[in-house]
């Protein structure tokens, strides 16, 4: 199979539609299963009561916000290095969804912070670096929107995206590097999970649901971009 075949926007277009449909179905199914586990199977938390149920969207959204940024910067860098049109289009297609998940992570975190920490917002390392991530996404979108020529917009956006990658490990390790109100990682490869198995299951199912959702909408969006640019 020749993978470079799909590097051309025209040949990728129908494949993107197929991927979008399959991922949309998977996202919907996983959301139903994830919410069922989250609300009806997972037990009430001993310390936080029902307020902890925000975890099932907060943590997956926060993971997605960082993951999408890295993928976006990867495609942007590839487009910058090899001048491949589709790579830059993928970066542009991912940015709005990444910004949305960053907003969701901040919003749900804020509503979780009030009952557990007593405040909606605090200028803490984790929260501040996640807010900077939102500004990076918005900056990328604004920069691309401000430049008329799409190829120049791609190059300018790519530089911003690549420089901004440095913020992702800062977000991830902020809870270890600084004194922070935010708790440490709940799930890590090095240690066993610090929560009940059903809670973890609900969180992971929702993470996959968001994952497939993000693929579906970015494929739909890249199809719009291909049509708009190549028409």
């Amino acid at each position, binding site marked *: 199979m020749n993978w470079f075949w799909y590097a051309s926007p025209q040949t990728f277009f129908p494949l993107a539609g197929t991927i979008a449909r399959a991922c949309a179905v998977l996202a919907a199914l996983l959301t139903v299963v994830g919410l069922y586990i989250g609300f009806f199977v997972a037990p009430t938390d001993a310390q936080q009561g029902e*307020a902890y*149920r925000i975890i099932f969207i907060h943590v997956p959204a926060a993971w997605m916000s960082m993951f999408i940024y890295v993928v976006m910067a990867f495609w942007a860098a590839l487009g910058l290095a090899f001048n491949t049109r589709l790579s830059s289009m993928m970066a542009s297609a991912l940015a709005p969804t990444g910004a949305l998940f960053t907003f969701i992570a901040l919003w749900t975190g804020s509503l979780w912070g009030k009952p557990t920490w007593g405040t909606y917002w605090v200028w803490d390392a984790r929260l501040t670096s996640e807010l900077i991530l939102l500004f990076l996404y918005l900056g990328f979108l604004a920069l691309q929107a401000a430049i008329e020529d799409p190829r120049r917009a791609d190059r300018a956006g790519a530089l911003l995206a690549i420089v901004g990658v440095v913020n992702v490990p800062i977000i991830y390790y902020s809870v270890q590097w600084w004194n922070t109100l935010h708790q440490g990682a709940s799930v890590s490869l090095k240690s066993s999970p610090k929560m009940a198995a059903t809670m973890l299951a609900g969180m992971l199912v929702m993470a996959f649901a968001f994952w497939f959702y993000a693929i579906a909408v970015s494929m739909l969006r890249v199809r719009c971009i291909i049509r708009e640019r190549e028409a």
Partner: protein
Amino acid sequence: MSEFFAMGGYAWYVWGSYGVTFACLALEVVFLLKRTGETKA
């Protein structure tokens, strides 16, 4: 049933999170389908 929606007194925080999250995702899909329709024409 009403006990479920009360969320042990945390209704505003829990439903405020879930409501805004799914409203955002639904809006993104609506705008995207609108854009798809416009680019097709």
